[in-house]
């Protein structure tokens, strides 16, 4: 036998102990596999169930709102034959142009003429009471549009009184429903443009949301102008400059807490500080905006800090290493990369502020205001507050107005969130 230099494998009894291969087809294995599949199926069904429930809630809400609200965008009109030839009015066309026209037509007794025409045409059904208080304004606008109407008989579809309107939509009092039945084909439907251009009114048929919408927009302008710069600058300072110590830890905790404070508390704060101490005008978009800015600022700070923190340190290093100053690092590199996140957070914060009601109630933006605010210090109300006020009204005509206003608010909120999602998907860099 020749000896080999290759060492022999050591032989021991321990090593040749029989190795039984795993039986992947055993009964226990198969049961384990079956159990795994069931667990997975169960989990998937649970998840699907959760999604279905939330989607159903949302769908229910939307369907109810749209079903009730769409009628707010529709008005019932009554066809009225009119003959204005004996209106005492100088028929020179110049009188019907420019700012004097409204006065001239009102002075000539147009309102009375319209009422008289209604009384004549529909005496049995209720006459002038069938028409909305503002119906004659439509006649006025039609005449301004076409002055020849003054010299020819014509017919015009005019908005009806709230009670008739509600009845025509199938929800009125028995008396009003009888009137509707008698009027029959003289009634028609049309888009209620006045809803978008009018302000609040005690008459549901004339109440519009433009006053509240404008109040909301003015309020949002103030909120954005204050909360955005202050929020973003604080976030930059805290992330990029502030030393890590007890003081900044405390500030961080405070900001997080502030974001969780119930909104009505901000209302109280606004009441005490802006109205009580600073004596700013009550019910004004300025004060509403300041109050909502207090509430929105922490949201913007937190979103901005997260966005800034998500910018990888390697980019900062790269900029520093070619000799960028700290401000250049922030403005040339960090902010552009964090911008989508900052804007998304800001829009979501603003959307929350837009839907906020309680703090605005506290600072008096709940008054009945029949004219849209002209400026930041005028008395105003806001869209969600208007919804709240209308929902409190006894008159039936306000039910649909309330739903219609909610739909308008929802459209704004969905649009804002849509923009936020678009920004996030389109511009956010992933690392």
């Amino acid at each position, binding site marked *: 036998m020749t000896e080999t230099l290759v060492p022999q494998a050591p032989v021991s009894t321990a090593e040749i102990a029989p190795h039984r291969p795993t039986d992947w087809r055993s009964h226990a294995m198969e049961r384990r596999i079956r159990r795994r599949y069931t667990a997975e199926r169960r989990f998937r069904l649970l998840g699907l169930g959760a999604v279905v429930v939330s989607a159903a809630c949302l769908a229910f809400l939307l369907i109810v709102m749209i079903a009730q609200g769409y009628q707010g965008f529709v008005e019932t009109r009554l066809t009225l034959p009119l003959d204005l030839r004996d209106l005492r009015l100088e028929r020179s066309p110049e009188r019907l142009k420019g700012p004097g026209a409204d006065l001239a037509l009102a002075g000539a007794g147009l309102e009375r003429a319209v009422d008289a025409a209604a009384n004549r045409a529909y005496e049995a059904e209720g006459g002038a009471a069938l028409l909305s208080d503002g119906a004659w304004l439509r006649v006025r606008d039609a005449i301004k549009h076409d002055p020849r109407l003054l010299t020819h008989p014509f017919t015009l579809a005019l908005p009806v009184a709230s009670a008739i309107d509600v009845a025509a939509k199938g929800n009125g009092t028995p008396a009003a429903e009888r009137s509707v039945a008698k009027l029959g084909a003289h009634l028609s439907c049309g888009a209620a443009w006045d809803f978008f251009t009018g302000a609040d009114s005690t008459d549901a048929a004339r109440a519009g949301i433009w006053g509240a919408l404008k109040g909301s927009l003015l309020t949002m302008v103030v909120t954005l102008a204050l909360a955005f710069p202050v929020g973003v600058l604080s976030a930059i300072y805290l992330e990029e400059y502030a030393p890590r110590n007890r003081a900044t830890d405390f500030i961080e905790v405070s900001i997080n807490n502030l974001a969780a404070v119930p909104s009505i508390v901000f209302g109280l704060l606004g009441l005490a500080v802006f109205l009580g101490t600073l004596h700013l005008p009550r019910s004004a978009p300025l004060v509403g905006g300041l109050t909502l800015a207090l509430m929105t600022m922490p949201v913007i700070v937190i979103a901005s800090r997260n966005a800034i923190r998500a910018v990888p340190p*390697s980019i900062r*290093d*790269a900029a520093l*290493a*070619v000799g960028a*100053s700290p401000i250049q690092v922030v403005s040339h590199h960090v902010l552009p*990369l964090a911008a989508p996140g900052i804007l998304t957070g800001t829009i979501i914060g603003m959307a929350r502020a837009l839907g906020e009601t309680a703090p605005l109630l506290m600072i008096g933006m709940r008054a009945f205001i029949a004219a849209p605010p002209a400026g930041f210090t005028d008395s105003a109300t806001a869209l969600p507050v208007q919804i709240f006020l209308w929902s409190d009204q006894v008159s039936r005509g306000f039910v649909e107005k309330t739903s219609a206003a909610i739909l308008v608010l929802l459209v704004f909120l969905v649009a804002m969130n849509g923009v936020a999602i678009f920004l996030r998907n389109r511009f956010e*860099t992933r690392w």
Partner: protein
Amino acid sequence: MSNNPPKMTASHVDVSYGTNHAIRDVSIDVYREDVTAFIGPSGCGKSTFLRSLNRMNDTIPTARVSGDIRLDGEDIYAREMDVVQLRARVGMVFQKPNPFPKSIYENVAYGPKIHGLAQSKGELDRIVERSLTRAGLWNEVKDRLSDPGTALSGGQQQRLCIARAIAVDPEVILMDEPCSALDPVATARIEELIHDLRGRYAIVIVTHNMQQAARVSQRTAFFHLGQLIEYGDTSDIFTNPRQERTKDYITGRYG
């Protein structure tokens, strides 16, 4: 070794992160004509020491540097030293390629722009072209300068980062394991590049790859546990180390 005065001198440098004493009493001279390599096992403080040469450690709140580091005889930790200018004079290339998420052109043009090195667009174009050429990247990217720098391959990105560092015309370039994230072909290109750049800039390169240190450097410093064990001509260190620990490390007994 040369007779010229050293470009940078570090004497008795200590760096600590809070209570972690990462660098102890390190003294090194860096010469303009040479490529200096820092080698040593992971965690021995090579990056820490490198970052103290352009004060990148200032960005770490816990880091404390003591000792004396001079660039052309000027104390870089002195109060009157402007750290922003210092970092333009002592450029840096990082372990992971980190181009800005901007165009290739913007990546290179950024430094000259913020330091006002170009009076006109034409001059800026020339700086960009020259830097990319020196970084050996010009021919590959000249037709797509407006493409994002992040769309390049890893090796190209690293050369773009080198071009970005060169563009501000630094005196020293610090490279922290510039090839550790690259494949062998890209690594070879960077090594060639370092060879070409030698003499124009003082180059300090950290590497955990001993062959690389032997190939690209003229002087080598061996670090161990935060201390400088041996520093000398690369040929001496690799053929005839004076310290037992250096020899053990180079022959692969640990690391």
